[in-house]
């Protein structure tokens, strides 16, 4: 076991997979000699060579096209999109090409691509760097979307993503890159895609969340316990498509109360889908409506307004209190 930041854990996952499978290729803007703008690919080109880890021209669609072509020709591309706000440039390649390859060919071809990309607020980035756009891909049949919240999950989930024979979007929250260290085993291990993790057990309320909001929700849970003795269960989804509704529903059936916490705007993200499914499958277990904690439905804010815009511990406590007192 080693203490690693999420950046180091992700780097380690790519190293493990590059060493294990020569079909794995890592590429993107500045991922080669520079080691990535966040040093996530640091040292990989030196270790594995320029034919395995390489820079591309500055063109996201070209990167996606390269990945799709390599994938149908027997390779396992790990393509980086420098910031997920730039995904619109490569939307066709992700949503219309990679996501549909197996379907369009009736199973003849597949696209085992991992699209890695940083996102997430709280670090005062310029425009279109921090936007939470994962909800767009919840609505895209054919892709999986993984969002780890800690170094251990990040490594195990990325290894699973790279080994998956269908396209996976692996979103790395920038605020979590170096904000803390965690225990990460050496060598290979996997965490199944599509499996949530109950990160705090409780019996009075379920908080369903992912990404940086896992940490915000854990803080809120602690304060709720201190303030009013409420036992709050926190579920880290880890994968937002496919959703682990089995874990969510089991928890809601136990606590009878739930809120969904996401960093994305109210009309975006995954909260609405989770609430719809709880309504469909567990309404008779509910003591209160399922509320959402989200960002407001504006464009992602100017850097100086992040603090008043992003969901925080107080907003989570407010929503939880409403549901507990309903």
């Amino acid at each position: 076991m080693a203490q690693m930041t999420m950046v180091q854990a992700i780097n380690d996952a790519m190293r493990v997979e590059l060493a294990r499978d020569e079909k794995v290729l890592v590429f993107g803007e500045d991922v080669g000699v520079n080691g990535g703008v966040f040093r996530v690919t640091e040292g990989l080109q030196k270790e594995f060579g320029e034919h395995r880890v390489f820079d591309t021209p500055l063109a996201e669609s070209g990167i996606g096209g390269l990945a799709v072509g390599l994938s149908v020709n027997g390779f396992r591309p790990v393509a980086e999109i420098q910031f997920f706000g730039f995904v619109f440039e490569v939307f066709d390649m992700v949503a219309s090409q990679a996501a549909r390859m197996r379907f369009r060919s009736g199973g003849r071809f597949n696209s085992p691509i991992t699209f890695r990309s940083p996102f997430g607020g709280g670090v005062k980035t310029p425009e279109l760097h921090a936007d939470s756009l994962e909800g767009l891909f919840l609505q895209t049949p054919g892709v999986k979307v993984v969002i780890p919240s800690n170094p251990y999950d990040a490594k195990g989930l990325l290894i699973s993503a790279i080994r998956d024979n269908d396209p996976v979007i692996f979103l790395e929250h920038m605020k979590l890159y170096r904000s803390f260290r965690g225990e990460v085993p050496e060598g290979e291990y996997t965490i199944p895609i599509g499996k949530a993790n109950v990160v705090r057990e409780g019996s009075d309320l379920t908080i369903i969340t992912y990404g940086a909001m896992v940490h915000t929700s854990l803080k809120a849970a602690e304060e709720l316990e201190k303030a009013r003795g409420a036992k709050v269960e926190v579920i880290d989804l880890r994968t937002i498509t496919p959703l682990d509704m089995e874990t969510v529903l089991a928890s809601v059936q136990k606590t009878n109360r739930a809120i969904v916490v996401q960093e994305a705007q109210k009309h975006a993200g995954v909260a609405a889908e989770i609430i719809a499914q709880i309504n469909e499958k567990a309404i008779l277990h509910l003591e209160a409506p399922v509320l959402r904690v989200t960002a407001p439905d504006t464009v992602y804010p100017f850097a100086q307004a992040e603090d008043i815009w992003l969901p925080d511990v107080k907003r989570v406590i407010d929503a939880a209190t409403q549901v507990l007192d309903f």
Partner: protein
Amino acid sequence: MSVSTAVEQKGNEPLQILAPDGTVVRPDLMPNLSDDQLRDLMRKMVFTRVWDQRAISLNRQGRLGFYAPVAGQEATMIGSESAIDKEDFILPSYRDIPQMVWHGFPMYQAFLYSRGHIHGGQIPEGVNVLMPQIIIASQCAQATGVAMGYKLRGEKKVAITYFGDGATSQGDFYEGMNFAGVYKLPVIFFSQNNGYAISVPFEKQTAAENIAVKAQAAGIASARVDGMDILAVYKVVQEAKERGINGEGATLIEALTYRYGPHTMAGDDPTRYRQSEEQNEWEQKDPLIRFRKFLENKGLWSEKDEEAVIEEAKQAVADAIKKADEYPKMKVTDLIDVMFETLPDYLQEQKAEYAAKESK
């Protein structure tokens, strides 16, 4: 940049080997083809013309669905496909069904593709083509990945991708060429410039003198070729392939051609945007007329040969449409099954729901 004979010609004049009267105007560039190979090119062009006529008719009868006519473009399609090998990979656009079929994709599956059936995309193992691309120029960027795969494995193969003149306005066209240039990839970017993107003439796509000059922006080689001259098309593609497998990188080919029919069979009426004189002028340049004259002059083609091919094509189309008719209908569970290698819970649930309905 190495300069070969047919690729990298300078100026606006497209390469021509056969004049419209069937005489050889560039004997120095004559591709090295046996009499049988020459006859086979003609056979495939006649076959494709008949197939196109039949496909239009079958579409009108409601027996085919989406169809983009190809008459007039036989030389660009067959000349280029014939100049590559079966090991080479084709990334076609929606109009490039003939190249797929001549590369080994069964015609009945092309008909199922037209109708919108899953089996129309199930390319047989060993046939190196992708499904027809609907998103214009997406295939240009994807061709780089296929070609990079060959380069990484040290295989002497090329990727060829087809698109029209309108596609050259897309970002993916430029991005694909530019990536191929940077990594020196064995890609042939083959533009069939038929003068129109639906109703929009080439002059409204770009103020550039032609498509071939766009290769300069990516630093790759280019050629301009008479797309009604199958021998010129063959020659240019053959050289582009040689350049690719010899590590000299990608080539953009602009083939000047014309589609006699509408853009697609979905209601496009070309008389709204084209003059009949223009159509007549291009019909004088018909690739079949020109090549037929050339072969007849050499004693390699007769009316009897032509009639035999026409009969062969009609029979092949009839057999293929019958086979397509007999192919089992799709079920929703079939569609669910090809979404992922392993179905996630929500799709397993939905599959069970539909399986229950389907078993009733």
